[in-house]
């Protein structure tokens, strides 16, 4: 009975908000800034209900001035506060990129370790609803490529909460990228899976630990975010065809759990990396290289990459469908490496 009470199923957004509220209750120095995060509760429900409990001073709607408020979060963090700043869509990064990668990410290093920047930058990622080239990107690779920020990407409610606790408590800047399609929004139905049982108590999902979502012997499918669910669906299809796929949810890009990836590849001998981000110069290349460099002898086939082509995201339905990988694309790739 008490087990049930403390393990209720919640949406991913609810789980994130749970963690933020707990941290705000426990530490007056935690506050949230962003566009439409107060009265609206976040366009993607990322702050739903926080205003009622904490008021406008701690859940701050800000002017449409990403350079100013994300830079201000960095400044407040350097003073020792623990701000959370939300960039509504990751695509808007261009407006404020300098404050992110030249300031937030680098102050610790440039100061020879004297300064730390304990802030969280939350941002919504992902397509699947035809919002076109300026509102659908994932940009995992862009953030993960530039040193100095930890980067986490939850795929379900349990991880969303645990990673948020870990991110807020971390003394480094953490970029927390949440996929719109996983949030449990009324107007954008989520696939089966992201809504999970979540403990009432607070807990951390350690930043830098991947999770094996499904054990398998024949091929390792390594992915994150929305595509964890697509990979799990692909694994079901593959199982029907006699291919036993292992599915790894990275959960964190920086640091990257290289051991988990290598352990799996050494076991299965085959690798498919799946990413919603662009194909070139991104995480599919990174992880394929890791496997070929460090598990060459165990590989029975060259790794396959399933990613978005290097084109801006098109608007029209048939074009976006062509652009985004689905379970079928993942299963096809797995079939190719296991042939």
């Amino acid at each position, binding site marked *: 009975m008490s087990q049930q009470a403390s393990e209720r199923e919640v949406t991913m957004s609810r789980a994130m908000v749970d963690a933020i509220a707990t941290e705000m209750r426990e530490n007056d120095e935690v506050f949230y800034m962003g566009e439409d995060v107060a*009265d609206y509760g976040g366009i993607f429900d990322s702050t739903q209900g926080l205003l009622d409990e904490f008021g406008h001073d701690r859940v701050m709607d800000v002017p449409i001035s990403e350079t100013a408020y994300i830079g201000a979060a960095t400044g407040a963090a350097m003073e020792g506060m623990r701000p959370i700043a939300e960039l509504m869509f990751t695509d808007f990064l*261009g407006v404020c990129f300098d404050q992110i990668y030249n300031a937030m990410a680098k102050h610790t290093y440039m100061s020879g370790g004297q300064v730390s920047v304990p802030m969280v930058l939350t941002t919504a990622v992902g397509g*699947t609803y*035809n919002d076109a080239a300026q509102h659908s990107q994932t940009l995992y690779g862009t953030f993960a490529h530039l040193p100095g920020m930890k980067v986490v990407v939850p795929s379900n409610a349990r991880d969303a909460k645990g990673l948020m606790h870990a991110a807020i408590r971390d003394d480094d800047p953490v970029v927390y990228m949440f996929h719109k399609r996983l949030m449990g929004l009324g107007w954008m139905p989520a696939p089966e899976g992201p809504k999970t049982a979540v403990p009432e108590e607070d807990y951390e999902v350690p930043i830098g630990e991947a999770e094996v979502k499904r054990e398998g012997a024949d091929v390792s499918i390594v992915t994150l975010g929305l595509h964890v669910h697509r990979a799990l669906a692909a694994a079901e299809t593959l199982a029907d065809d006699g291919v036993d796929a292992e599915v790894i949810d990275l959960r964190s890009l920086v640091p990257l759990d290289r051991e988990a990836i290598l352990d799996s590849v050494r076991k299965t001998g085959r690798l498919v990396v799946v990413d919603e981000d662009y194909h070139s110069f991104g995480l599919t290349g990174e992880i394929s290289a890791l496997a070929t460099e460090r598990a060459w002898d165990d590989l029975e086939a060259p790794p396959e*990459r399933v990613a978005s*082509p290097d084109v801006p995201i098109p608007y*029209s339905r048939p074009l976006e469908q062509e652009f985004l990988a689905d379970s079928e694309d993942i299963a096809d790739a797995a079939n190719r490496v296991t042939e």
Partner: protein
Amino acid sequence: MLTADTMRDLYDDVVTARYYEERLQEEYLEGKQPAFDISAGPIPGELHLAAGHEAAGAGVCAHLRDDDTVTAPHRPHHVAIAKGVDLEKMTAEIFGRETGLCSGKGGHMHLYDPDVNFACSGIIAQGCPPAVGAGLAAKKRNTDAVAVSYLGEGAIDQGGFFESLNFAAVHDLPVVFVVEDNDWAISMPQERVTDVENAADRAGGFDLPGERVEFDDVCAVYEAAEDAVGRARSGNGPTLLSVQVHRRMGHFMGDAEAYRPDEDVERAQNLDCIPRLEDDLRQAGVSDDELMEIREAAEQRVDDAIEWAKDQPEPAPEATYEDVFSNPPQGRPMAAEQGGDE
């Protein structure tokens, strides 16, 4: 007082835009009711409608030629209509069709019509620097073309806007910045995020004229824009114009506006530029029958465009890989190289 002919043209623009938005709303909600699912129905993606903004589109664009440039924000349809963007192709684009303005790749926030030098974008204040660039090109080439950049009152806090004001001012460029002040930036009321009530005051620190049109009165906008565009065209530099408009709907379709007081919704409904212009037209001697004729013709044009657009084919999936470059690199096509359909 404007001539009756000028007012008739303005009326045509505003009623076309209003009816267009009403029809788009209808089409958009098809398949998304009763439970709103953004990815269902014939029009994909987000949709930002501009009902209540029409005066700012018509009143300014009435002074523009095809070779003048307009950059519009995420709420672009009324400006596009006033600028003379091809209505059929624009509609086909919004429906994601192959024969749309941008072959179905752009969508409603990314409409481009080079024939009339129109572009828009979904990133706040992103249109300001390109308008400065168009003004710069006109100046370098010694033409008298002008550029107009539209933005919301929420966008006046954006760095790109400030930098553009300064650049245009210091180089005396033929640019008019038009702020459409509808009091709201999604859920953020202006007073919570900006300390100046009048966006035109932003001109002060840049040594350029700033002017405000208090009511969404098409004729008043027309007159203010006449000065601003005239100043630009005659080589006398940029102007910042702020126009009071009203948001008659949610920020985007599906926005329940829980954050917005009922009185404010009501206020916006009551301050409508269309009846106001109708009164002016009647005073200028235009009959109700004539107004009805203009409206009916506009509605017919819109209905035809929507019907045409819905009949258009969707793009073929292979088109995904085309148009990344104007001068595509040699070699294997992107799809084959990247594990797409081979």
